[in-house]
């Protein structure tokens, strides 16, 4: 048997289910070598990872959502999937601050591009009926938030940023459940219709049925 034959058989063996497990020394050597995929490839993989992870989490379009603002719902689901704001931002081609502002309510969804919001909705697989419910909740909350901020400051005292965020999140959820239901404005209805169109353009028909 020639060297080539034995090396070919070795390659077949190491690529078969009969291959011995990898050892720390082989993996350590590879990790120490200056070889790695390009940044563009890493970004693509991260986006695909987030997409597949969330698709796995929501195999069916999400229809049942509690009364909570759109951004807070996104935040809760992101945390449940152990993802960072940066992961979500990368998956929809935005900066982490975009996601942070949306989640905390510093920016309202209807002030953002419907196409970008459609990408986010598609990523989290939220059915349009649930989107309407979450957006309506955000809208009601936006009308009562000013009063909430006053209450928050009164209870927060010298809160740290972390505690401040937690208090704000709890207040948002409390107010979302108790906020007076208001009729969405014509502008908001038109924005939602545009989101629906963008979802259709992006081929997310299962979120529109």
């Amino acid at each position, binding site marked *: 048997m020639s060297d080539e034959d034995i090396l070919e058989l070795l390659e077949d063996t190491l690529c078969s*289910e*009969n291959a011995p497990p990898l050892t720390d020394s082989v993996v350590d050597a590879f990790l120490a070598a200056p070889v790695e*995929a390009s940044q563009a490839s890493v970004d693509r993989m991260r986006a695909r990872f987030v997409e597949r992870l969330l698709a796995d989490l929501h195999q069916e379009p999400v229809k049942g959502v509690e009364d909570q603002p759109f951004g807070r719902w996104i935040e809760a689901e992101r945390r449940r999937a152990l993802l960072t704001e940066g992961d979500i931002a990368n998956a929809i081609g935005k900066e982490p601050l975009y996601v942070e502002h949306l989640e905390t309510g510093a920016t309202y969804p209807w002030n953002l591009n419907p196409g970008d919001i459609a990408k986010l909705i598609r990523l989290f697989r939220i059915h349009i009926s649930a989107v309407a419910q979450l957006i309506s909740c955000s809208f009601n909350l936006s009308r009562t938030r000013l009063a909430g901020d006053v209450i928050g400051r009164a209870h927060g005292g010298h809160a740290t940023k972390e505690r401040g965020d937690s208090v704000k999140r709890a207040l948002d959820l409390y107010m979302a459940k108790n906020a007076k239901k208001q009729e969405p404005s014509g502008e908001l209805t038109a924005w939602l219709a545009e989101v629906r169109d963008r979802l259709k353009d992006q081929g997310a028909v299962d979120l529109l049925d």
Partner: protein
Amino acid sequence: MDEINDAKFLQQLQAGDQVAYKLLFNRIFPKLCAFISRFGVNDQDAEEITVDTMLKVHKAVRTFDPDGGAKLTTWIFEIAKNKVIDYKRRPAPPELRSLDSERDLKDEQALQQDDGLSPNPNILRLRRALDSLGPEDQDILRTRQVMSYEEIAEVTNASVGALRVRHNRAVNRLKKAFEEEKNG
């Protein structure tokens, strides 16, 4: 990569710490994809297998036992290697099969031989032969599968010439052990 294999880091990871996950993924994604490419997988499929691997890691890292004998990084690379093996065992798409019926037939035969029920006897012999070698021989043979001599030289500070000699000796010992296995 030392911090990835640190016990405290593993605890954070197993507790579902997002920052720990971020660090793990930032460090592992680029290396893992490069590793998978070394098995002759095209770039696009290598990316998909890397994502598959990391999804499995995401799901199963809570069950990883640091006392199980391998580092976390080795455990992750082993998952990747098994994904590559699954990928290689997949039958080719029908449109590719029809292009080369002779190769198609060979692939079918190879699949039948390696379907897990009737493994290729030479592969089993070689596996036993490999196991019978010393750890240094096994290391150089396996490392060479995924790294060039130049890359190994850079990591180990050994010269390329010395590595070639070491590899040749290991191949000769493997051949001998294989022949012994073959002759009973």
